[in-house]
């Protein structure tokens, strides 16, 4: 093939394909650079300086913010809360997501309607979702208290958010309710790609339902589960809406992202908030990498 830019220079078909591929990828690479990599680099750089609108200048301070963060009681409390959210929500979303996906996969009639109903919580804006549950949990007129009072489980109305552990669990449940459908959809897609012949062969070999699930289903949806785990973890790390709407800036339920927001936009300590967000970014990347390396596998059916 002739190189039009440099006539006389020969380009192999492979190189030409590569060049075309690069050109096609260039727009998205540019977008990613402008919207992702450049802001991340700026954030990293600014986190090493003091950036605060109330104070003149932006002097270089090195790792001082990171040092202060590890000694900040509010950050520690927020980090503990976030850890609880991550563990609880990822576990529930994965278990229930797989369960719902398997159920949906067995439904032959009306699956699309059921799928639509399952996806509805995920389709709602997070704020709307949280507000609905705020009303449900309301101690004075909430459905939860009214139901438990009417069934005799409670003798008087209970203020759910006054107990730290209960508050963390209830906020986690709201997040799970919203995000579990995404896990279910991802896993359902993987389930539907599993050839039925594998299950028939297993039945011929005498495998029961649990055996088929353990030896065929689980291994073949592992890659999808890894993807679902990654997105669950990232969303849990970035939990904001549910905690903010249900509990405001209360320290017992505050997440790391809420702490970032408060540091940056209430205390106007922007670089301090940036440093915290950098730590969150690296933590969530590390966990995602763990999933990809340990759980994801390229699935082949032959």
């Amino acid at each position, binding site marked *: 093939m002739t190189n039009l830019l440099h006539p006389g220079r020969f380009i192999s078909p492979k190189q030409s394909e590569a060049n075309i591929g690069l050109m096609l990828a260039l727009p998205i690479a540019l977008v990613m650079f402008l919207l992702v990599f450049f802001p991340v680099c700026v954030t990293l750089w600014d986190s090493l300086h003091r950036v605060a*609108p109330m104070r003149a200048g932006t002097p270089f301070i090195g790792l001082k913010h990171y040092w202060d963060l590890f000694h900040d009681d509010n950050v520690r409390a927020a980090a503990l809360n976030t850890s609880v959210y991550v563990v609880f929500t990822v576990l529930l979303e994965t278990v229930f997501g797989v369960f719902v996906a398997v159920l949906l996969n067995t439904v032959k009639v009306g699956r699309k309607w059921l799928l639509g109903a399952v996806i509805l919580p995920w389709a709602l804006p997070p704020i709307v979702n949280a507000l609905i549950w705020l009303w449900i949990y309301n101690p004075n007129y909430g459905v939860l208290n009214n139901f438990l009072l009417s069934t005799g489980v409670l003798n008087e109305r209970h203020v759910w958010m006054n107990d*730290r552990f209960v508050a963390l669990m209830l906020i986690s449940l709201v997040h799970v309710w919203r995000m579990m459908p995404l896990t279910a959809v991802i896993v359902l897609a993987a389930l539907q790609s599993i050839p039925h012949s594998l299950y028939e062969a297993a039945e011929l070999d005498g495998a029961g339902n649990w055996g088929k699930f353990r030896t065929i289903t689980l291994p073949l949806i592992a890659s999808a589960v890894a993807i679902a785990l990654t997105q669950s973890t990232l969303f849990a790390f970035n939990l904001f809406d549910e905690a903010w709407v249900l*509990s*405001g*800036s*209360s320290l017992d339920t505050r997440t790391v992202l809420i702490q970032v927001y408060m540091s940056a936009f*209430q205390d106007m*300590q922007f670089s301090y908030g940036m440093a915290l967000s950098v730590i969150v970014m690296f933590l969530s990347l590390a966990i995602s990498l763990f999933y990809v390396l340990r759980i994801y596998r390229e699935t082949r059916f032959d």
Partner: protein
Amino acid sequence: MLSLKSFKKAAFTGCLCMAVSLPLFAADAPSSKQYSGQTITVLVPPWGTLPKDMVDRFKGDTGISINMQTLGWDEIRAKLITSLVAGISPADVVELDWSWVGQFGAAGWFTPLDKMVSAELWSDIPSRKIFEYKSQTLAVPYNNDFRLMIINKAHFDHAGIHQPPKTLDKLLADAKALKASGASKYPIALPLSATEGTATAWYLLTKAYGGDLFDKNSKPLFDAAGSPGYKALQFIEQALKDGLIDPASTGMTDVQVQDAFKAGQYSIDLAGWPGNLSTYNDKEKSKIAGVVSGALVPSSTGASNSFGLVEGLAIPKKSEHKEAAAEFIKWWMKADNQTQVFNELSDLPTRTSVLNALIQQKKLYDGAVLLEQIKGVGPLFAGGAPEWYPELSRAASTAINQLAKGQVSVGDAAKQIADQTVKAMNR
């Protein structure tokens, strides 16, 4: 710098002016149509959102259209910061609270209004000094807010109590009597969520115990056992343990607590807003109309103390319609407009002459009580709200919220507030 003495003197002297109506100042001269055709955006909380007829009247007087935007008080601050940091003016006229002056003044975001408003008008607004930052006035006060106690008289009568409590011990005793009589399950209305209203309620209780939060060197006073601020925290803890404050208050803002009070759920709005007296007595807005009255904040020292929480209207430097915005603020400050705002939105007028006229015309609910309470109103910070005030407020509301949930002790809460405030001071 605003001293306690000069603040009290200005407020007290102005409000006690009797008999002869004061002449209208030049501030009430006809508005200019110089900026006709412009549209300005005004960002204020619900109690600052002008009714449509006033918006239309402003347009008729000046030719300037208004785009009125309403946000909750806590949300306005966040919107201001995010917009102004990005170099964008969120509106041409914005709410500026007394507590934001230090922080926002340091950031240099607002247009000095000293020359945009006439000297005659300034002389009629004693709370101007609260909005001064480095000798520049950043906002014109529009809501002369302070705190006083408001009670449900019907509940008190039901419990056989004929006088509002004057001391904090009597307050607790009366609250127990109200509870025992069945008048209300939780007599004392107090916000306990991690929001500003919780912090200001604690400040009020500290004042009620006869003390201040900091000494003249900004050293915290409230972390010492036995100090007024410490006792205020103990008051909150004890009242909760005795079942006198609704445990659900840990999730309620001050506005939500007020809504519950005017629905008849509580008996004592301890950190009440004077402007709410007219709202609580409005049959269309309240279930307790006609049985509400203002009362002096109880005190352990005999003298009822309170503090000012004045709100102002400011013009961001990034506004592209500064002159039109100034026209709006000047129009708001006119006597008849301040009066109408009071009637419609319950914002207590900031002009001394207007306040006097309302008192003389007996249009101010419990005017005598308000006048008496104003004697004890002073600034929370003698030198104006410092730059680290927002961090103090957040530390206080967070710690009180945890205290109310039983997660920390009074000592730990006080220490937490002190430590975080000192850290913010030294940043």
